[in-house]
């Protein structure tokens, strides 16, 4: 038992800190700190900065241009990025598609797509979810019918995050309609500029345009855009879903969020004292912080095991549930701290203007983030699905 980082790990942390101090633009970290949207350009800019540093792909093998960091290094990197209020890297190409291509893609696909992910030339989005399918992913209905050199794709995807910025989408499509649920599904790469694709915005309850519906009408996709074998897509999809889960706990986001709550509470007067000194508010903050301290160690335990080659088991599901509960609680604290200034919806303040918030710093984003992050326990395998998984492993029973 040793809770300390090794000398090498500490040196690595210092290197990351140095990089962030040098290269993370202040207007960017300011925006993230108060909860503003970055927009496409901001994302691309940060993507480029990381690529220049060679740190864009922490988990890729070196042969593909990645860092090949182990789990502890990746954790340190993520922790420092969150602490410095660096933007989140859009994960669809880098963290989701790339591992699938690296494992199951053809040499041609690897050579073509992976460099374009790093360079930022391609912005990928994910075509998994369909209307009405929810957590029951295997019931998907989007059809791809082989016609000569092409598949013809018809159907609809939904909850496509940042699809409005993407020029490519990776999709699960049904290629064998007669096969049972999870067979007969294939994994296709589709150029968003292909005729027949329409992207329709979904406005979320906090007023943001973050997700989309993507409609396919007789979309022709060259057969060379099939990843791996036809009808084996479910295997690749599962690999993708289980592969990149080191940051499932969101410890860094929670830590940064808690710091923001504390700052806000120190600036707000309540009954003649800073809100941070109010025992009821302080008790809520303390409970969240105590929970986070413990979860952070749970996270490290799993990371440390992963770094020594052991696969995470049902602990991922546990972290997902607890991690989202803590993040949502912190969002709730921020909303409370903002007081009456949680009520305004000032879209300019959220979309990256430089105007200061009307209320305490962070207040403009507090309630929108509270509502937006209700998604954390719904998307990415709902917390109910995670509990089913835990029960299945531990009790062996069905749902």
């Amino acid at each position: 038992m040793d809770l300390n980082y090794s000398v090498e790990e500490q040196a690595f942390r210092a290197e990351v800190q140095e990089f962030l101090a040098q290269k993370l633009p202040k207007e960017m970290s300011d925006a993230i700190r108060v909860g503003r949207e970055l927009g496409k350009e901001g994302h691309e800019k940060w993507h480029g900065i990381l690529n220049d540093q060679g740190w864009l792909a922490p988990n890729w093998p070196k042969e593909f241009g990645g860092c090949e960091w182990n789990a502890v290094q990746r954790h340190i990197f993520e922790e420092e990025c969150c602490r410095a209020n660096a933007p989140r890297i859009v994960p669809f190409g880098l963290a989701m598609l790339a591992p699938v291509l690296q494992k199951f893609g053809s040499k041609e696909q690897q050579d073509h797509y992976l460099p374009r992910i790093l360079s930022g030339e391609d912005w990928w989005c994910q075509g998994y979810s369909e209307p009405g399918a929810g957590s029951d992913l295997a019931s998907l209905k989007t059809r791809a019918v082989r016609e000569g050199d092409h598949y013809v794709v018809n159907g609809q995807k939904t909850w496509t995050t940042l699809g409005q910025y993407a020029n490519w989408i990776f999709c699960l499509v049904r290629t064998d309609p007669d096969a049972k649920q999870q067979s007969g599904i294939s994994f296709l790469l589709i150029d968003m500029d292909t005729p027949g694709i329409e992207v329709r915005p979904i406005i979320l309850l906090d007023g943001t345009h973050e997700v989309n519906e993507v409609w396919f009408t007789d979309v022709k996709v060259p057969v060379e855009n099939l990843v791996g074998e036809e009808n084996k897509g479910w295997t690749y999809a599962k690999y993708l879903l289980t592969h990149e889960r080191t940051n499932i706990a969101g410890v860094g986001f929670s830590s940064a969020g808690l710091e923001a709550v504390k700052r806000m509470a120190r600036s707000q007067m309540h009954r003649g004292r800073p809100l941070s000194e109010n025992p009821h508010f302080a008790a809520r903050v303390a409970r969240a912080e105590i929970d986070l301290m413990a979860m952070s160690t749970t996270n490290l335990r799993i990371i440390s095991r992963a770094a020594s080659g052991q696969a995470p088991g049902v602990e991922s599901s546990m972290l997902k549930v607890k991690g989202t509960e803590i993040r949502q609680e912190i969002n709730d604290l921020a909303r409370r701290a903002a007081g009456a200034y949680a009520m305004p919806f000032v879209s300019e303040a959220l979309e990256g203007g430089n105007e200061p918030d009307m209320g305490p710093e962070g207040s403009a984003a507090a309630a929108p983030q509270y509502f937006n992050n209700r998604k954390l326990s719904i998307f990415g395998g709902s917390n109910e699905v995670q509990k089913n998984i835990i029960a299945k492993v531990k009790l062996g029973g069905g749902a």
Partner: protein
Amino acid sequence: MNFDLTEERQMLQDSLRRFLRDNQDGLRASTRLGDAENALGFDAGIWGKLAELGVIGALFSEEDGGFAGAGFDLTTVFEELGRAGAVEPLLDTAILGGGLIAALGNETQKELVEQVIGGELHLALAHGEPNSRYDLAQVETTAQVEGDDIVLTGRKAVVINAEAADYLIVSARESGAAGDEDGISLFLVPRDSAGLSLRGYALLAGGRAAEVDIDGLRLSADARLGAAGSAYGALKWASNRAEVALAAETLGAMEAATELTREYLLTRQQFGRPIGTFQALQHRMATLLIELEQARSAVINAAGYLDSSAAEQALQISAARNLIGRAGRLVAEESIQLHGGIAMTEEYELAHIAKRIVMADHRFGDTDTQLERFIDQSAA
């Protein structure tokens, strides 16, 4: 002891519920976030019809030109508004604005109440300030007598309905220190007065508000409501009534949320059967229904004791709003969770309802502040 609505209130409830149901589209059209066309924050046509239906009059006593105005009248109206997710500013124009003029105004000023009841006049209470949080006595805006004039200077925060209001009722301190109950006056200020500047914005849960800058605003003495420096009692009275109304509105929204969730669980299929047949979800739904009954009783208590002693009022109101703060958060979050993704979209009814429930916690004192008030009152 009797927990049935009187026949009059039953009729009011029925006609209001029918009206709101029939006008659901109009009600909701005004709530889309960032909709530039929605300059008022609500639908003027619907407002007029609410007045015709007698809904505004039901919030005032006969003495003040209405025909009801008791605690259970307020809750009957606002529970329906909440159920329908209406963002129409009855709380601001009628309960707060109209209520304060009725409580403090002279005969001339009180004529405005008649216009409020008739649906012809809008009001906003410009009271909260950037540093006041939920403290009713924390007034830093000053009113200085200069000859025949009174000059107001300060800043008012998140003034709901300010842009639509014909008059703002502005609180300002004529004596004492920020935090003193004594020394606060209210002034009736036409919205287009020189020295008053508004920066308007939408609210996340619908409706609009504004930051109000008051810079050397000159008023004549007859703009004052009541005697100088003695408005705190009326402010407390009006905000108590507003808290009861807001609690009832939130109760109504909680009813709507649980009903939407109930329906969704019955119809939505997953893994081949309605998700309402999954026991884990059933038990969570049962918990919501239990908390809903708790919230209903809390509102009944707050309304029933609205004319009791100040201590009993304070105790019951803080109890109701603390309970509804907790139960409301649970209902809102669980309703969204039980719905899954669909509840995250702005256009789905529940999204709006959930925002109404949660954001109500940011007026007059949030869940924790209410708990503190309850503790203070219990110890008193």
